[in-house]
């Protein structure tokens, strides 16, 4: 029987009056490269913590390759590698010792050393193997944290914001290594704030908002559904005609971004501007990206105009 890598069924989680998760149902198949997206507070980390067995759900269940994370926690955790979001480390040991310990907790001994070397190599940690965790730079600590989650060669890997505050070099290296693991059959689940990462890496995307999954589809399908285009016009300090203004998604320093659903609208915008006597200084046309899908589903998270306080005395 081929169980899903991760099967989430009706998961609710309440923290007192706060409903962090409101009924999550989600199946991630083995071998997938899956992105879990959502704004802060959407419940991604809560869901991952339940998956990892760090917190218990209020209702519902999660299984890893068919093993319930609560009732069969030993098997479930054996199959799972979770990279914690917080940059934590054990100051008593060096990188290689930590990796050996971590693999050892999962029952693996010296026979696993070749894999530990592969992980060190793949994440660019080989020359830091004998450096104490305390002496590593922030970026190196992040690599070590990822290496620790991989130490027992888990078939299902969860990366919770793995590239937050991480240099470009590591990102590239990390993704090359993770893509290789995915090709080798490991299931990868990724949460990230960098939507372009999800777009280029992941075959399927789930988007969460306020403890619910609001979209779930292949990356290609999601992008097709929102096959809109972006028209970026540099106009300077102008007053836009009303019918054009409603298409504005974003305006800053005289640069206006219009969200278009149809190419016909370009002609409409340009002729309307011409009629109002507004000159176009520069023009750009972009494809919609995952960010547009994200924004249209999750709501505009751009900074809203603060209300000016009026004083009537």
């Amino acid at each position, binding site marked *: 029987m081929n169980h899903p890598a991760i099967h989430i069924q009706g998961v609710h989680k309440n923290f007192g009056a706060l409903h962090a998760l409101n009924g999550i149902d989600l199946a991630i198949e*083995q071998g997938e490269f899956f992105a879990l997206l959502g704004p802060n507070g959407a419940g991604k980390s809560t869901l991952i913590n339940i998956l*990892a*067995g*760090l*917190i*218990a759900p209020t209702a519902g269940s999660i299984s890893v*390759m068919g093993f319930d994370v609560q009732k069969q*926690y*030993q*098997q479930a*955790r*054996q*199959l*799972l590698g*979770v990279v*914690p979001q*917080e940059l*934590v*480390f*054990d*100051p*008593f*040991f060096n990188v290689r*010792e*930590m990796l050996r*310990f*971590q693999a*050892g*907790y*999962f*029952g*693996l*001994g010296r*026979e696993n050393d070749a894999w530990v070397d592969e992980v060190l190599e793949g994440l660019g940690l080989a020359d830091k193997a004998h450096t104490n965790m305390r002496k590593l730079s922030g970026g190196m600590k992040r690599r070590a944290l990822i290496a*620790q*989650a991989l130490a*027992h*060669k*888990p*078939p299902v890997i969860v990366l919770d914001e793995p590239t937050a505050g991480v240099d470009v070099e590591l990102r590239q290296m990390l993704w090359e290594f993770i893509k290789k693991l995915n090709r080798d*059959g*490991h299931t990868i689940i990724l949460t990230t704030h960098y939507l372009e990462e999800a777009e280029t890496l992941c075959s399927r995307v789930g988007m969460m908002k306020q403890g619910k999954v609001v979209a779930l589809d292949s990356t290609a399908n999601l992008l097709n559904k929102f096959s809109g285009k972006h028209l970026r016009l540099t106009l300077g300090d102008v007053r836009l005609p009303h019918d054009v203004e409603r298409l504005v998604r974003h305006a800053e320093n005289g640069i206006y971004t219009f969200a278009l659903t149809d190419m016909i609208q370009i002609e409409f915008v340009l002729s309307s501007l011409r009629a109002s006597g507004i000159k176009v200084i520069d023009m750009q046309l972009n494809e919609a990206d995952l960010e547009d899908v994200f924004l249209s589903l999750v709501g505009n998270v751009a900074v809203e105009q603060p209300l000016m306080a009026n004083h009537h005395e």
Partner: protein
Amino acid sequence: MIDALSNRSGWVGPWTLLKKELLRFWRVSFQTVAAPVITALLYLLIFSHVLDKHVQVYDGVAYTEFLIPGLIMMSVLQNAFANSSSSLIQSKVMGNIVFVLLTPLTHLQFFMAFLIAAVIRGLVVGLCIYLVAMWFVDLTVANPWMIIAFGLLGSALLGTFGIIAGIWADRFDQMAAFQNFIIMPLSFLSGVFYSIHSLPPFWQKISHLNPFFYMIDGFRYGFFGKGDVSPVLSLLIVGASFLVLALITLKMLKSGYKLRS
């Protein structure tokens, strides 16, 4: 891929955690072993200098001889407590406790690893004090089995208490309060430096409520063949206390109290 489940051995996991806990204190043995040994020897030096000619607790036993087993046991107990409690509070404050929580280790394996590491730290410190003290005083041994039994049970009891404290405390100052308001008074008022028979009746009664008293008294019995109470009674009380605390600890670990929410 599922063969990730088959190539593991049941003992490697808990053994690795024990090994890590042992290495943790051994890496800083200057602080975790040498320091408490020095402290105990200072007590020994000062108290024996001041009191050796003036106080005799048991007939034919010099005060310094009387003091040494108590000091050894007090150090065993304090260091067993310190090992499990400080390891846990550090891991919690640093956040690296998560590395263990993510593993398939059961709550029993978790308990055993921290317990055995605490017992070993306590016994290593105790043994070092004994070896150094042997240079100064010829210590008799009346009943080595009692020494071993109380050494093991006492350090296990305090190691378990340290696990409870480490799980309960969220900050270092809470842990310091545990040390200063529970462990220190109980160990100093347990008859390390005196026999409780020298106390007024009321304080003798109070001392009988102190579990440290039975551990010290029973341990000392192993050296001199005499004590303030029967060693069998002490053994039963210490053993029962250990069982109760161990069950409480296992229940805390199983429920995930303060570790998993």
